[in-house]
């Protein structure tokens, strides 16, 4: 049964690659490159802005699959994509340590912010740090929407609760299991608090009734890294393409493109590739990245 099924599938592939679906299924070592990334880079419009420049420079064609950071890394682990761009430093470190990727290159950063309704029922405005702000939300049992999707933002949120020495639970704490935009929408509808990355927030701020109520804690630093999936583990992966993308995005040209990407005059991501990932990881994150110009 299995060989038969495999033959049928192969036939189907041939059929679709020969005719109706001509731009189909690039075999490895071709221009097609698959990148798993977080929703924030895709939905903020950054990738649509910078990737065409990379494609024009190198002739590669990048296919972007936007999911939460956790899932993006999982796709890399399974060898289903060639390169991963994510923002979950701890999980990324583990990804490299387990040999799924060779090296993590820092690309850029932005920061997380706490959003809520202008009324600010838990009075988190003016908190001295992020865990304190979360503590106020919990003690007031003010509605808080969590991403709940194992994304980089979700991991960061859980870490902040940990810093606040709290275990969020109860009717006020809602896990949406959805992307950032959707969660911001939900929080807007429910007058709830939520943790968001600044990039996504800036791209939807015009449509949301929410306000930034807390920002600036260095714990809210949000670094993005890019990793090629290991060729040792998956020999037929498009490793050359992945490396080309990494080289480009960490080059002055790529970094410039990231810095040039603005919404309403505000830079969404601050480029920070300095070609020495080890140094970058040790580097203390700057508080309150200069996103507003």
């Amino acid at each position, binding site marked *: 049964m299995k060989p038969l099924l495999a033959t049928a599938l192969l036939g*189907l592939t041939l059929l679709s690659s020969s005719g109706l*679906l001509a731009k*189909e*299924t690039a075999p490895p070592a071709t221009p097609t490159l698959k990148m798993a990334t977080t929703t924030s880079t895709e*939905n903020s419009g950054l990738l649509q802005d910078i990737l065409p420049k990379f494609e024009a420079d190198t002739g590669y064609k990048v296919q972007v699959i936007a999911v939460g950071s956790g899932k993006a890394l999982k796709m890399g682990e*399974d060898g289903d994509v060639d390169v991963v761009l994510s923002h979950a430093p701890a999980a990324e470190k583990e990804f490299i340590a387990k040999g799924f990727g060779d090296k993590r290159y820092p690309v850029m950063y932005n920061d997380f912010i706490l959003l809520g309704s202008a009324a600010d029922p838990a009075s988190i405005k003016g908190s001295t740090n992020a865990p304190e702000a979360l503590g106020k939300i919990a003690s007031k049992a003010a509605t808080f929407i969590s991403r709940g999707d194992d994304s980089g933002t979700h991991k960061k949120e859980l870490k902040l609760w940990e810093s606040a020495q709290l275990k969020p639970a109860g009717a006020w704490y809602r896990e949406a299991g959805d992307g950032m*935009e959707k969660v911001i929408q939900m929080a807007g509808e429910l007058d709830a608090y939520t943790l968001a990355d600044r990039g996504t927030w800036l791209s*939807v701020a015009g449509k949301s009734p929410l306000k930034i109520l807390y920002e600036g804690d260095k714990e809210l630093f949000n670094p993005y890294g890019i990793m090629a999936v290991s060729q040792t583990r998956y020999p037929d992966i498009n490793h050359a393409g992945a490396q080309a993308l990494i080289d480009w995005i960490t080059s002055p040209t790529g970094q410039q493109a990231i810095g040039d990407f603005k919404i309403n005059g505000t830079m969404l991501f601050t480029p920070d590739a300095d070609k020495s990932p080890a140094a970058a990881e040790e580097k203390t994150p700057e508080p309150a990245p200069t996103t507003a110009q």
Partner: protein
Amino acid sequence: MAGLLEATTEALALLVSGDEALWEIVRISFEVSLLALLIAVPPALLLAFVLAYGQFTGRRLVIALFSTLLSVPTVVIGLTLYLLLSRQGPLGEFRLLFTQTAMVLGQIVLAFPMLVAIGHSALQAADRRAWETARTLGASPLRALLTVTYEVRFGLLAAVLASFGRIISEVGASMMLGGNILHYTRNIPTAIALETSKGEFAQGIALGIVLLVLAFTLNILLHHFQGKGYIGS
């Protein structure tokens, strides 16, 4: 309410202005779903025929099985195929995950039971004597099959159109297997899901209108053909 009106107006403007991104998504949807249907229809209808006219043990079980498959959620089919096609899966060597081929496969699996189930009941409704008469008159089994098929062509057409309606509008399997890649595997339903999550309701509604118009057209066509059929007979 104002939001809905505004988004709908914007949506109509997008459609009329021939927004390239929008129509590309529509094109991908049709390419994938039509190809899936093209591949699924012949074997499915043949199976439906065998189930309606053949006599073998387990026939009822197979019919029940296909009727059951109709109610399997599309995400479950998506997940099953995802695990099969992922490079960790048994068919991983073909590297099909996140391609249009994977979407086509998913939609074939979705369309197949529907074609078999509805096709089977259409064929059952045909007068069995048509088959027997044709055979007695010396027609080959193939010729007799065509005769019966012609008798119930509207029922079969309904099966095909209903299946097309199912696969072009389903989001779960397409999202998992295609990955919602721009210019490549982003079809109407996955684009609606994405645009909605981004709060870009206008584009979501515009694509929704395309699907509605499509469903309406298919139904009109079906009724048109059926009407003619009855007048002619």
